[in-house]
């Protein structure tokens, strides 16, 4: 699925990723943990192609296709989805309009037929009910005036409706209370499948009690400095990142 090799990237001329390598096979959920400033969000933006994140070396591919050569929307059409740490407010665009425009753009890019309005509304009703989102809320401008928890739920709703293959969750637990965390995690877990893979970026172990990873990696100083099973997350929670920061 995702294969990242010796990736170097810089922002404003400052090196952030310094030789990061990572393989996430289909069907698996990998967690990336690390201290603030380690490059966690940079990794998510480099993988999705944000302007200003310059790749200076290495490679990243999805099922053998070079991701770094593709525009952000082409990556999305191939199934890469990023759940943003801070979802954007889109004034004037109802959530339904935004999601439908995105879904149809992806479908067109893949050479598929556009979704019809009734099909789309049916899908939106089912998926929003799963996530306990009031359907009326989808008629409002996306994320405008939404609480932190509502914005995160809206990210998972988009994820559920766009049905991506490779999911990146960037600090999805921040700003969520326990109830919302459970709803969001259930939504994410429902998408686990042998054809999909996930990269869960988080600062705290808490989220990983709900979304159980197959592998845990420690990102420090722009590289993966340790990898292990789910027990590594507990070890980090107990002992902190200091040891790894020194190693980096």
């Amino acid at each position, binding site marked *: 699925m995702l294969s990242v090799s010796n990736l170097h990237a810089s922002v404003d001329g400052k090196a952030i990723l310094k030789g990061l390598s990572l393989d996430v096979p289909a069907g698996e959920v990998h967690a990336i943990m690390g201290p603030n400033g380690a490059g966690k969000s940079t990794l998510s933006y480099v993988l*999705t*192609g*944000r*302007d200003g994140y310059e790749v200076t070396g290495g490679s990243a591919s999805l099922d053998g296709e070079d991701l770094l050569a593709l*525009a*952000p*929307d082409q*990556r*999305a*059409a191939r199934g890469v*989805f*990023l759940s*943003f740490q801070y*979802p*954007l*407010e*889109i*004034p*004037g*665009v109802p959530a339904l*309009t*935004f*999601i439908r*425009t*995105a*879904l149809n*753009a*992806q479908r067109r*890019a893949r050479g598929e037929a556009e979704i019809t309005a009734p099909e789309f509304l049916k899908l939106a009703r089912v998926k929003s009910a799963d996530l306990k989102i009031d359907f009326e809320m989808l008629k409002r*401008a996306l994320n405008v005036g939404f609480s932190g928890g509502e914005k995160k739920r809206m990210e998972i709703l*988009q994820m559920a409706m*766009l049905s991506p293959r490779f999911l990146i969750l960037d600090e999805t637990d921040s700003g969520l209370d326990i109830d919302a965390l459970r709803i969001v995690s259930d939504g994410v877990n429902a998408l686990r499948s042998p054809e999909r893979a996930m990269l869960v970026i988080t600062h705290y172990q808490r989220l990983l009690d709900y979304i159980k990873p197959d592998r845990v990696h420690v990102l420090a100083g722009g590289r993966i400095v340790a990898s292990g099973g789910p027990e590594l997350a507990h070890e980090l929670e107990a002992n902190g990142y200091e040891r790894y920061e020194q190693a980096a």
Partner: protein
Amino acid sequence: MSLASAIRDRDVAELPSKRDEDWRWTDLRGLVRVLPEPSRPANPSSAGPFDALAGDVRVSTNGGTVTPVVIAAGETAAVALRFVSRGAGAHLAAVDVTVGAGARLVLLESYESDEASVAQVSLAITLASGAIVERIVLAQDDAEAVCVSYAQVVLGPSAKFHQTIVACGARRQRLETRVLHPGGGAELRLDGVYLLANKAHSDQTTVVTHTGTDGLTVQLTKGVVRDQARGVFQGKIVVDEGADRTDARMGHHALILSDRAEVDAKPELEIYADDVACAHGNTVGALDEDALFYARQRGMSQAEARSLLTEAFIGEVVDHIGHDGAREVVCAWVAERLRG
């Protein structure tokens, strides 16, 4: 100094120039070196944009006379007013609109030119006590035309006047509205949209004078400029001495989508009363890069993300149009220009 007197007297020395403070961004004297010959009478070409929405369509082609619009007290009407310029001549048109006490009027006004004409249209709009008028102006001038529309609006007590001007510019285009606001519960809403491409120039100028207590004015103008286009917004609110408890809010926001486009804005509040609530906001900038990336991460192409966000930006103004049919016409017109 006005385009109207220059056309009437056939004297370019009477054209407003950049030396006139009010016209410094819409210089006509520097542009029009020789006034064209007077326009010949002509028939309007195709249908107007609002014909289907009004039982009463009045057309002035090349300065042809229009019967004054008179709505008797208590009546309700929708009138389409078309100002059509055919050919490259110069002409003047004028019309009076009088709305009686408690009457309601939807005024659907359009400017349609097809060549390098030079024209001024002058309107005098008078609302009696309690009258309600919604004026929607669609200015779709030719890229080579020079067009000035000048409307003088006088509100009676408790009257409501809601105006939305939508314009795509011309060689020089100015849409000026002056409102005499008596306060006394009268409500004024002045909105505007300009969508400019290539070398288009559009100027929306408003002057609102509050003369009595308890007046409300709300203004919102939004523009999108690209290529080498130039948008001008001049909004002035005057609150006379004694016009206490006036509530006036003015907003102007523009998106500049290319390095060579330009927006000039001058919001002005002139307040001589003590007890008032007045505010203005003005922003000129580019599309939010973070929002663009967000939309692209979800699968929209650069072009699609830009047009979605731009339409949403303008949509805030268009959504305020009260007349359903007119709102649909304007919505489609905006979408066509932004996607084109």
